[in-house]
């Protein structure tokens, strides 16, 4: 049995009939067609699926699409502004080589945004703690931390 949900994703309204057991990440990728958010582990551990729901970064593999009914969702595709100007976390990752293969990057960007939205000038320790729920198999995290620091600097 399906249920009708209406959500706003990156500023655009969508309405779909979905099965209650459909995970938000599958909804975003397979129903809406926004494949920027990745599925790394599907077990709530890697953070590659991180998106914002009503301003809070969450792991979209651990939420049902029906739970997001009525919500405003921001995915990595919506980070840049309408003119295509990248968000400062994207600039930071670009300039500081905060990625190698890029698989973890969508989630890293979304959680980095949350870290800075809540704390505009975090210490290195606060950044590392903030990235706790996101795994990267390539960079060793050093450049990711630098990218967040650069983004923080760009924000002040």
């Amino acid at each position: 049995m399906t249920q009708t949900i209406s959500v706003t994703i990156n500023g655009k309204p969508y309405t779909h009939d979905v099965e209650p057991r459909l995970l938000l990440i599958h909804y975003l990728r397979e129903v809406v067609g926004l494949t920027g958010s990745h599925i790394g582990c599907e077990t709530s551990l890697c953070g590659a699926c991180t998106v914002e729901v009503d301003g809070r970064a969450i792991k979209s593999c651990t939420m049902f699409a029906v739970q997001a009914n009525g919500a405003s969702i921001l995915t990595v595709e919506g980070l840049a502004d309408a003119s295509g100007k990248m968000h400062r976390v994207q600039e930071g990752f670009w300039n500081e080589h905060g990625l190698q293969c890029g698989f973890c990057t969508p989630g890293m960007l979304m959680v980095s945004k949350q870290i800075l939205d809540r704390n505009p000038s975090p210490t290195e320790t606060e950044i590392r703690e903030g990235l706790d729920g996101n795994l990267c198999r390539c960079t060793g995290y050093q450049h990711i931390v630098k990218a967040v620091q650069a983004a923080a600097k760009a924000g002040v």
Partner: protein
Amino acid sequence: MIPNTFEYTAPLTLKVALALIGEGGKPLAGGMSLIPMMKLRMAAPEHLVDIGRIAELNYIREAGGELHIGANATHYDVESSPLIVGKCPLLAETAGHIGDIQVRNRGTLGGSVAHADPSADYPAALQALEAKIVLTSATSQRTVAVGDFFIDTFTTSLEPGELVTEVIVPVEAGLTGTSYQKFLQPASGFAIVGVAARIRREAGKITVARIGVTGVSGNSYRALKAEAALVGKAGSDAEIDAAAALVGEGVEAGADLHASAEYRLHLAANYAERAIRVALSRTA
């Protein structure tokens, strides 16, 4: 990683939710424990009642020298609420140790206590705070002391049809210092051992000591012998060590892949010592 099919209802009022739960519906709060279990098909509820939209369960307020926290308060709400940070800092500090940002943004206080994971963080603080848990069903409401609420691994005194609706913690009086110290399992972030200390020192002497422990055995507990050893003392290093050594006394420690029983007890004493020391340093 796709759960079984289920029916889903998201009531807006507590009354409707309690009626549905009374008929056998399974509560869904933040989903941070239940959804992973459903994906692994270790849980397959037929009817999920999403309590996440019930605004009446979402509050943090002070009344009668206590803080009343609605079950839907997320770990992030608890960690960042000025009222909790200011008046019950132990609970806020503990919330900040749970999982990661994303988990804290969704997981709830009510869901965590109802789930009663033996390595969850809140139980240590709630034991040290002598918290009370409010349980509500369609026909009744009762308030249970935390020591009577947690029974064993994943087992509480919740009856079928009941919801955790509120958690009550004391407003800390001056001269009380608190601290939560945790040794975590690095992959999951859960506590292998977590110790919460809450200590009041007046005129140079400890007058109240409460020590809550999680992770060591199947159930959280208060380390009564360690507490008793502190009362009346000034809090010297030797006195702290002697009290901390009693934290695992008489406890049947659990063993798993991550830590043997002996190691858990060793960690408990170590982390108790840290928690007591930091709590004392905050009594001023």
